[in-house]
């Protein structure tokens, strides 16, 4: 995966932190918001650490 794609995904993840809760999940009654933020953090972590470990 090239660097530009990594950046796009990373920026998208951060934007989702703001947009998904306020557009979709503001009034949830279950663990949807909890799980969403955890999921986004996992994606950010996996993408970033994968990119980091590939660097030489």
């Amino acid at each position, binding site marked *: 995966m090239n660097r530009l794609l990594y950046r796009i995904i*990373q920026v998208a993840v*951060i934007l989702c932190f703001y947009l998904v*809760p306020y557009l979709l999940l503001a009034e949830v*009654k279950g663990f949807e*918001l909890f799980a969403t933020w955890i999921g986004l953090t996992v994606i950010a972590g996996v993408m970033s*650490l994968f990119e*980091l470990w590939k*660097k030489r």
Partner: protein
Amino acid sequence: MVRVEFTVLLGLHILAGTLLALISRKYFTRNLRDYYTTSSRLGALLSAGTYAATTYSAFMMVGLVGMTYATGVGALGFELLYLASTVILLSTIGYRIWMLSREYKWIAPSQMLRDLYNSNALSLIVAAIYLFAMIPYLAAQIQGLRAMFSYGGLGSAEATVISAILVYLWIFIAGMWSVALTDTYQGFLMLTGGLLYLCWALHHAPASGVSSAELFRVLSSNGYLGLTSFWSFTTFLAYTLPWAFFAVTNPQVIVRLYVPRDERAYKKSVTYFYFYGFLYTLIVVLIGLVAAGLALRGVIPQGMQWDSVTPYLLNSMHPLLGSFIAVTVIAAAVSTANSIVLAVSGSVVSLLTRRTLTLARTIDAVLVAASAIVALMGVGFIVDLSVLTSVILLPLAPVTILGVYKHNRTSKVKAHFAIMSLIIGVGLGTYYALVLGPRRAFREVVSGLPISAWILLVSGLVLLVGYTIEAIRKRPTTL
């Protein structure tokens, strides 16, 4: 009345930390680069341990628990956004900073910016900004421990003196070596304390007649699993923006990018830090949610001040457990405070031509003493200013990011505009702090955006103008 369990555990903690600090002396070569950065000789575990313990202060077990208790799951989004953006920054610009630090052998972030922009004036201004922003933050750390010492039956004067001595002692012994080793030990304590706190909370609920199902039901029906009214979009933005750029604005974490000994150690340390941060955040937020549920069911009081929740719950525990957790909170504050002292002192020392270890240690002592005096005097405005520390440092984000990525093409124009962007950005934050008071300034919305967003936009724009002017100047003219 002094709590015996607390005194004994605190004494054991001080003894253990001091022994570890003394052990680290055998690695200390007594030159300034070693004092501030271990001459980039730290392995992955210590690099990660010191980064984690420096980043995560007493705010987690006291402030974040209270924030979650009061505002619900929105606090998780706030804290996880910090972690997500930090792991992104550490994997990108952080890696570059680590590589460059091996070439330039920096001891402080202000020195880094001096070299990236080829400007002594810039490093002077950055060091001044660090002093302005970080002393209130240091004072707030020391003052914030009063509640934990009060749990142990000790007064605010004793709390301040013990905290200040502890902060200074573990720096004095071997600089970054003793700080990194004690940080890693304290990071382990913090996680252990968090896990025990959570286990207690999960046990306390059913023991008080509130099952897990009932906890979930009451949190859900009261909107705590969604965005409560506290978390308007602008409030969420106000809280998250300064923390999203924390890894490239706060000197105590930037300097920790200089310490890993090789590429593998750097990569492993970022990985370890990520997992630690994830686990610690989840633990703390779950504690806060359980506390919120217990409050809604009337087991504990509702409407407590955020910082009062943990002290209240500690008093509900067995004194040995409560004392252990209180000591881990002290560990969290001390590990953050001494890292800040070392980083700010490094920024001051790097400005001087005559640099000695004695001078470095003297500056450390002055910083600790100044913060302790501010904390003891209870100068409200100064301590409140700590709330704005990361906002005041925000203009450093674009300056650092562009500086690192464009460091091969320095120019006076870029340096001047970097200085202007810092002065304007910090000036804006200070203006609103004076006019509105720091706490109100932090959440104030101006034309639909929080002040932190304006600071970032304005200072970033000023810097970009400088880069654009330079690009136009350097454009080859056609003949």
